[in-house]
């Protein structure tokens, strides 16, 4: 027994020793983690091939080009308190600009923007508010900016392109029914409907939320059964969910088509027909440029898009959403078709409903697309 205790003690000392050592080397290489621009991740990581990565790429691109120090913090847990702690930590590490992706940061930024009034906050995919479900108070101080994307426009383009490409049986598999995913899905339905009306054909669509952002045999199996039932294109909208859809598409006979999300996912599988992306990196880059040029502080100048105290929304008008036509594998849907429909959105000729329309997908009224919601 004594021997065991001794060895355990030795082992634990060794582990503690290792832990300390690691930290030390980490600190010296990153100069105690100090940096001017610090990004805080939400549930994902900086290589999630989705919006955390997109945001980080924007930070990295700007900082490297302009010789600014940058770093990131991953909160211990995805809670308001931990987000607030991470903001405190970032400020302690000398952050002048804090970049946060994800609407989950809304309450944390709402609280901290007044406390650190000399620090600039860039919030992606959300607007600062107190997080109150029923009667939320929102406020964006002059040192903060909230940036959202019109995901519905990106989804619209994907749905439109898929139907024009000849797909008449479509599928939508979202991760969870959160605002961004719902907007993508609603836009997808409306885009498919618009194309179906133009072509005078009937389209059917299965619509489903998997309940998580994971790759599982369940997701793979659902997608496989959809492909088998005659569905030819599925929009995999939710992180790793898309990977399971791709796995099913590769096995389907004939091979199915997949629509990726957030960033260009063409490299992940040859079944990816196109991706409904949003230009996260560009937006972050532009916001940082505005901060360092001083434009950000001209809070009353209407001509400046990225300025303090604003809640802005980026869409086709800013070329901030779209499909990557260079890597898309369309055969019938041409670049000319794409430019034409893109212009109608830019000019505001079509109004596309987003997640604010309601939680139930039946709020999206269609003429030619029969939406089959699957629980």
């Amino acid at each position, binding site marked *: 027994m004594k021997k*065991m205790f001794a060895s355990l003690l030795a082992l634990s000392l060794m582990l503690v020793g290792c832990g300390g050592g690691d930290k030390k080397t980490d600190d010296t290489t990153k100069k105690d983690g100090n940096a001017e621009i610090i990004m805080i991740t939400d549930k994902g*990581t900086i*290589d999630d*091939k989705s919006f955390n990565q997109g945001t980080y790429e924007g930070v990295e691109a700007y900082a490297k080009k302009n010789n600014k120090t940058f770093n990131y913090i991953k909160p211990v847990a995805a809670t308001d308190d931990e987000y607030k702690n991470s903001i405190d930590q970032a400020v302690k590490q000398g952050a002048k600009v804090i970049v946060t992706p994800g609407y989950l940061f809304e309450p944390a930024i709402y609280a901290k923007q007044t406390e650190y009034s000399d620090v600039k906050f860039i919030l992606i995919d959300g607007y600062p508010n107190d997080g109150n479900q029923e009667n939320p108070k929102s406020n964006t101080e002059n040192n903060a900016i909230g940036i959202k994307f019109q995901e519905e426009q990106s989804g619209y383009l994907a749905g439109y392109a898929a139907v024009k490409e000849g797909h008449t049986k479509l599928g939508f598999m979202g991760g969870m029914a959160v605002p961004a995913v719902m907007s993508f899905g609603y836009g997808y339905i409306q885009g498919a409907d618009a194309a179906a009306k133009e072509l005078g054909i009937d389209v059917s669509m*299965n619509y*489903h939320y998997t309940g998580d952002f*994971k*790759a*599982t*045999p*369940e*997701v*793979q*199996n*659902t997608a*496989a*059964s*959809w*492909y*088998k*039932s005659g*569905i030819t294109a599925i929009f995999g909208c939710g992180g*790793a969910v898309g*990977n*399971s859809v*791709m*796995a099913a598409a*590769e*096995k389907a*006979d004939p091979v199915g088509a997949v629509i990726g999300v957030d960033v260009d996912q063409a490299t*992940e*599988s040859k079944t990816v027909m196109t991706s409904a992306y949003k230009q996260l990196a560009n937006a972050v880059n532009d916001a940082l440029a505005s901060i360092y040029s001083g434009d950000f502080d001209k809070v009353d100048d209407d001509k400046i898009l990225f300025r303090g105290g604003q809640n802005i929304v980026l869409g086709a008008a800013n070329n901030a959403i779209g499909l990557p036509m260079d890597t898309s594998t369309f055969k019938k849907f041409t670049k000319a078709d794409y430019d034409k429909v893109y212009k109608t959105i830019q000019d505001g000729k079509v109004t596309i409903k987003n997640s604010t329309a309601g939680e139930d997908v039946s709020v999206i009224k269609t003429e030619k697309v029969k939406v*089959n919601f*699957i*629980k």
Partner: protein
Amino acid sequence: MDDILFLLSQTMIFAIPLLIVALGGLFSERSGVINIALEGIMVIGAFCGIFFIHFMQDSMNPQLCLIIAILIAGVAGMIFTLFHAIASIHLKADQTISGTALNIFAPAFCIFVARLIQQTQQVEFTDVFRIKEIPILSSIPIIGDILFKNTYITTFLGILILIISWFILYKTKFGLRLRSCGELPQAADSAGINVYKMRYAGTLISGFLAGIGGLVFVLPTSTNFNADVAGYGFLALAVLIFGQWKPWRIAGAAFFFGFMKTIASAYSGIDFFLSLGIPNYFYKITPYIATLLVLAFVSKNSAAPKAEGEPYDKGKR
């Protein structure tokens, strides 16, 4: 008919990893060591196997690559389980705690190593291992469609492991000794069996199988591995209990669980199930309700190994 064949063929994707991992759990528990680290071992096995595939799949025959990857996954799982074995057999630690520790450690380790080597935590692979059709055998009615079309060699491996496991446990001296260590280790010891050795053997075999199970789980499910097996290690424990610690019953349980999960996730693509109008929840909860019922009815004379979970102490009477 076509739909039923599709369902049965899809069932393999769920059932085979469950079967292999549950059989792994069987070896461990029959020798007297609870192994709730199955989930973590699956993660480690899948990680090592996928890593090998990631680097080697372009330069060798796909089936050979898969076989080597399976062996690597198994050996990695076995080495990882060694920690659990030492803690619970040698150091007489609480088996639940050391198992939990492995479960927590595994995903963190995979993410750390993956990032160290290739900067991203997802390890990508291309599924080139699917066999479209096996000549002659695939023309057998029904069975040909289920087993010999759009299949993986892992399906046959799973069935082979089932047969071998049954044979080892019930038809060999080693199996009898292993089982005796899980029932009454003192008696086994007095008959000259080295209980420690037997328990090490049981636990390490379980690590080998769970590691393979992890790889088999990931291959058809995604296009990359992200340090996650979605709780299937714990589900395999449920299969083990539902199967009452007997190989053939475990096989039955694995296929039952797999079939129910297949229906639950595929019903939206199959007209027959849509027309039945039974809510999806029904299929989703069926395996769990069945497990609860079985536990409720057999708990009085449970087939669980008697000495399971107790560290063996020579001095204890």
